[in-house]
């Protein structure tokens, strides 16, 4: 059976939730624990109280709402007063531990407990200590020092000093042994849980992505009879998935020439059922000129898809500081560029004219049966970095 982590109870507490928390942590009846603590206080004098106080400091408080004070005020107050009375009475009468040892011992134990908790709790690497943690350590050290000073001022009696020190050390060590490993384990469990959560979230993200894209497309392909359409669906999906896996194309990213050409190629592939083999070793941000270049290249790809009658179009796009160039090539039917009718706006206007307007040039090399190659070259104006 896995026991809950040891912490001070928020619900069902009377004073600070120590007894309830310990009882829950070890799976025993809370009444039993309370009796043991009461016994410790009465029989062990201050040691019982010191142990209780140290546990208050050592154990983290259970998250969640705390039982409101009015509900338990009477019991708690009564108990508190009883405890204090018993202790003071015992101490004053020097029946068990004299006051002048009890006070510094309490200080020492409190200090040890505070420091110990800080040491055990630790923190993730690189995490900066919170102000509260620092304060706790400072207070802990101050308590230790205070305890020692009180002792020395009181008597200078080495025997008593050592007996109080031993008492405090025994209490602190015992508590540490009891609580320390559990704190460490709780810490490790929380870390493991956090990692698992991140993994799960990542998996969910990938699953959602695959579902929206790949699974939908696969389902679609199964219902498509036309092999050409299935091919184009598969190709588009492949590109999309690849872009996601390797391209890191997230929405909101700046548009570049490569993105524009990729979109144009996708469209041509889809419309004409051809494969566009796109090679773009270098890229540049899509300014007005490059956008026009991309538009001309799109037109060239569309022409190749529409007229070439082959399954593949090769496209190379390069961008350097001096010029940007796009080559669109097919091994298809080809045509006689001189014989193209005046009214065919495609080549004349959308490609040659467009390139001329932005200060570039377009060359169309083709002959019937020889395939077609369109070369688009755009000298880039020297400009300062924006």
């Amino acid at each position, binding site marked *: 059976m896995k026991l809950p982590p040891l912490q001070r109870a928020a619900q069902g507490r009377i004073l600070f939730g120590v007894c309830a928390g310990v009882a829950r942590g070890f799976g025993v009846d809370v009444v039993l624990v309370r009796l043991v603590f009461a016994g410790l206080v009465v029989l062990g004098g201050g040691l019982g109280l010191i142990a209780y106080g140290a546990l208050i400091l050592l154990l983290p408080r259970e998250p969640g709402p705390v039982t409101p004070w009015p509900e338990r005020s009477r019991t708690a107050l009564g108990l508190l007063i009883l405890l204090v009375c018993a202790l003071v009475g015992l101490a004053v009468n020097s029946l068990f531990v004299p006051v002048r040892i009890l006070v510094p011992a309490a200080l020492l134990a409190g200090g040890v407990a505070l420091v110990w908790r800080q040491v055990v709790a630790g923190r993730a690497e690189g995490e900066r200590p919170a102000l509260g943690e620092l304060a706790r350590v400072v207070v802990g050290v101050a308590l230790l020092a205070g305890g020692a000073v009180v002792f020395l001022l009181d008597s200078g009696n080495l025997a008593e000093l050592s007996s109080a020190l031993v008492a405090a050390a025994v209490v602190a060590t015992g508590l540490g042994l009891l609580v320390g490993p559990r704190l460490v384990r709780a810490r490790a469990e929380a870390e493991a849980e956090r990692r698992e959560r991140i993994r799960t979230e990542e998996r969910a993200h990938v699953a959602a992505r695959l579902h929206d894209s790949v699974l939908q497309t696969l389902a679609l392909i199964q219902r498509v009879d036309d092999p050409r359409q299935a091919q184009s669906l598969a190709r588009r999906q492949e*590109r999309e998935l*690849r*872009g996601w*896996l*390797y*391209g*890191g194309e997230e929405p909101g990213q700046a548009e570049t020439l*490569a993105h524009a050409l*990729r979109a144009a190629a996708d469209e041509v592939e889809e419309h004409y059922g051809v*494969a566009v*083999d*796109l*090679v*773009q*070793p*270098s890229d540049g941000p899509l300014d007005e000129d490059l956008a026009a270049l991309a538009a001309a290249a799109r037109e060239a790809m569309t022409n190749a898809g529409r007229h070439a009658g082959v399954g593949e179009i*090769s*496209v*190379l796009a*390069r961008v*350097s500081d001096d010029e940007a160039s796009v*080559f669109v*090539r097919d091994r298809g039917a080809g045509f006689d560029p001189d014989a193209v009718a005046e009214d065919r706006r495609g080549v004349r206007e959308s490609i040659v004219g467009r390139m001329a307007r932005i200060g570039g040039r377009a060359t169309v090399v083709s002959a019937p049966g020889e395939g077609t*190659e369109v070369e688009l070259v755009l000298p880039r104006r020297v400009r300062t970095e924006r």
Partner: protein
Amino acid sequence: MNVPLRKVVIVDDHEIFRAGLRAGLGPTVQVVGEAGTVEEAVPLIRAQDPDVVLLDVHLPDGGGHAVIPAVHAERPGVRFLALSVSDAPEDVLATIRAGARGYVTKSISPEELVAAIHRVADGDAVFSPWLAGFVLDAFAGTAAAPAARIDPELDSLTAREQEVLLLIARGYTYKEIASRLHLSVKTIETHVSSVLRKLQLSNRNELTRWAAQRRMI
């Protein structure tokens, strides 16, 4: 024409892809073995001594570039052709620099792949359009840093080599390039082999850094 029979080992972790590859290789290529991991591949290649190994750039227990040095000492005659669906340029570059004679993408047509196998078996180099475009820009793009030059012969491409690479990147076959440049196919092959040598031997770190910045899509 008398085409010699080439013995080929396929190293790829996708069984379906291996089956598809095998089916398309035709009568001049004989598959003598298949492996899915580096661990399987190394002893298999040593035992079979094939002419060409079709090597996936990515394998579950390491890149394809882990296979080449492990085999090379014992079987220097075995040639490697890197093959991949879509990989980071630095991995492709690593495989080439480890000694592969070329790189093609898995979408290559069966006829072209067979031609590439024969070309590699003959000791020539094979560049996919993507690799050609990449190499072209890698050498051109880093030319602006002459201080880093270690060997000017190795660190730059001749005008003719650039011309050939540009045409490969534009989708030309060796034969088409030869006829366009009025050269023999053999000369084109020599130019590409020379580029491959530079790619493998150039000491420039920029090549690798350049590759790391690019993504192959």
